[in-house]
């Protein structure tokens, strides 16, 4: 009996009069709303993060079980972690001109891809525009491109070496020639699909070839061009190992080739993960650029 009585005595003294009571009443609902919101955000993050995490962990586990046996030909994840520890935790170490972190190697490779892919983008869009404008060129060249685009990057190596007689331009050529086909083909299709109305507008306004190219052709075909660029950047990155077998130096592609020659399998595994992640990011970057650049063009 004494405890409730004490409470009854102290609470009127503590609790301020009517007005604050109202805010006290309001406060819980606001925090509840905020909590619900936070919960919703958490749930959204969880639905996107949990499934891939679980899958990756499961795959690692299977891999660990398969490769943990004595006599296994490939290193297990734990072995990779132990043996390639420095490569994983520090991408940007420098221990000498040939012994640098994978981050540096990726940057060198990206530079190479940037040159090769950049050339492919410029040439591909111009050639695609030319072909898209002419029925004859389309009919004549499309089969040639359809065949050439299936040639794997490695197959271009001897040809480009013979042609350039130097490793560095050959490597860039391999990237260029691997990534240019989808850019040409998609640009050509995009240009053939320019609505006839836009051509009529251009004709009435008497736009010259150059004005027509950048006022009508490029914006109208932009969605197709970016599809081509997106496929192209993927292929360019695929060609990096082949290209860097030629050049040597510090690229990520050459690192794999070098690690294979000195049988450092765990290093190769780490490099593969790097290549995969960078390729994924490249694809998303070009995709995002595309949706940024083609905002208005889809609907009319």
């Amino acid at each position, binding site marked *: 009996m004494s405890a409730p009585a004490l409470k009854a005595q102290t609470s009127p003294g503590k609790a301020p009069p009517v007005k604050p009571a109202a805010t006290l009443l309001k406060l819980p609902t606001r925090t509840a709303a905020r909590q619900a919101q936070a919960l919703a955000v958490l749930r959204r993050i969880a639905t996107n993060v949990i499934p891939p995490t679980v899958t990756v962990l499961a795959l690692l586990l299977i891999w660990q079980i398969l490769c943990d046996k004595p006599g296994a030909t490939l290193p297990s994840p734990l072995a990779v972690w132990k043996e390639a520890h420095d490569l994983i935790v520090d991408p940007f170490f420098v221990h000498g001109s040939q012994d640098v972190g994978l981050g540096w190697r990726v940057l060198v490779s990206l530079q190479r891809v940037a040159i090769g892919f950049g050339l492919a983008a410029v040439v591909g869009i111009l050639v695609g525009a030319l072909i898209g404008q002419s029925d004859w060129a389309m009919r004549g060249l499309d089969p040639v491109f359809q065949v050439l685009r299936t040639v794997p990057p490695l197959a271009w190596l001897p040809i480009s070496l013979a042609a350039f007689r130097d490793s560095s331009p050959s490597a860039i050529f391999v990237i260029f020639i691997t990534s240019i086909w989808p850019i040409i083909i998609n640009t050509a299709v995009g240009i053939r699909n320019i*609505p006839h*109305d836009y051509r009529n507008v251009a004709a009435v306004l*008497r*736009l010259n070839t150059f004005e027509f190219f950048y006022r009508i052709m490029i914006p109208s075909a932009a969605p197709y061009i970016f599809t081509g660029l997106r496929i192209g950047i993927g292929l360019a990155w695929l060609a990096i190992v082949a290209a860097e077998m030629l050049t040597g130096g510090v690229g990520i592609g050459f690192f794999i080739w070098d690690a294979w020659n000195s049988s450092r399998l765990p290093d190769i595994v780490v490099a593969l993960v790097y290549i995969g992640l960078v390729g994924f990011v490249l694809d998303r970057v070009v995709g995002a650029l595309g949706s940024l650049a083609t905002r*208005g063009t889809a609907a009319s």
Partner: protein
Amino acid sequence: MERPYLKIDQVSKSFTRGGDVSEVLRDVSLTIHKGEFVSIIGHSGCGKSTLLNMVAGLLPVTTGAILLEDREVNAPGPDRAVVFQNHSLLPWLSVYDNVKLAVDKVFSRTRTRAQRHDWTMHNLELVQMAHAKDKRPAEISGGMKQRVGIARALSMEPKVLLLDEPFGALDALTRAHLQDSVMQIHASLGNTVIMITHDVDEAVLLSDRIVMLTNGPAAHVGEVLDVGLARPRKRLDLVSNPTYIRAREAVLKFLYERHRFVEAA
């Protein structure tokens, strides 16, 4: 007699596809004076759009000639601006930029940058679209798009304004609004206009003359009607006007009695 401004002289048009030659228009002749509003009406497929495209220079004539101020028309140009049926605005440009593109192209040498801006805005105001100048075509209604299309065509200061079923895709109320706008613009600027239409009321309301085409193939000018209605015309007053009713009747009779549309199948 007044010198003809635009002369369509014995124009025929045939298309060749594979080995087949199909004659669309045969010996179409028409003389249009400066400041005149002429409608071309006919059943669908009779070649009225083909005729307009030839005046625009988008299609070559097979035989005959089209003369604008005594010079032969053989290529498209801003002196014969077209308002297309489906507006044909460039979707990646804003309303302002769509008109500005035309203004910049036509007046790049003769006007300063500031003058071109003012002229663009002036034309947007003329069609009451200045308020939406920064919108993209996808963000405005069909009637608004057509207004911008008209502004773009007017901004080129064409000798002849060509309207290719400009209100065909619009609902009746929007269409009436736009017809009134076109009447106002025609009254204040005195443009020479050729309009393709399949709407009898629209033709009678807007035109000085109505050119009726017979059915294809090998369509020709069946009849030309002078609409003797004084301007300015008011939609509501015309409903009971005997001249209006007579003109309307004449066109309807031509289209549905003498040249009934026989479907191909």
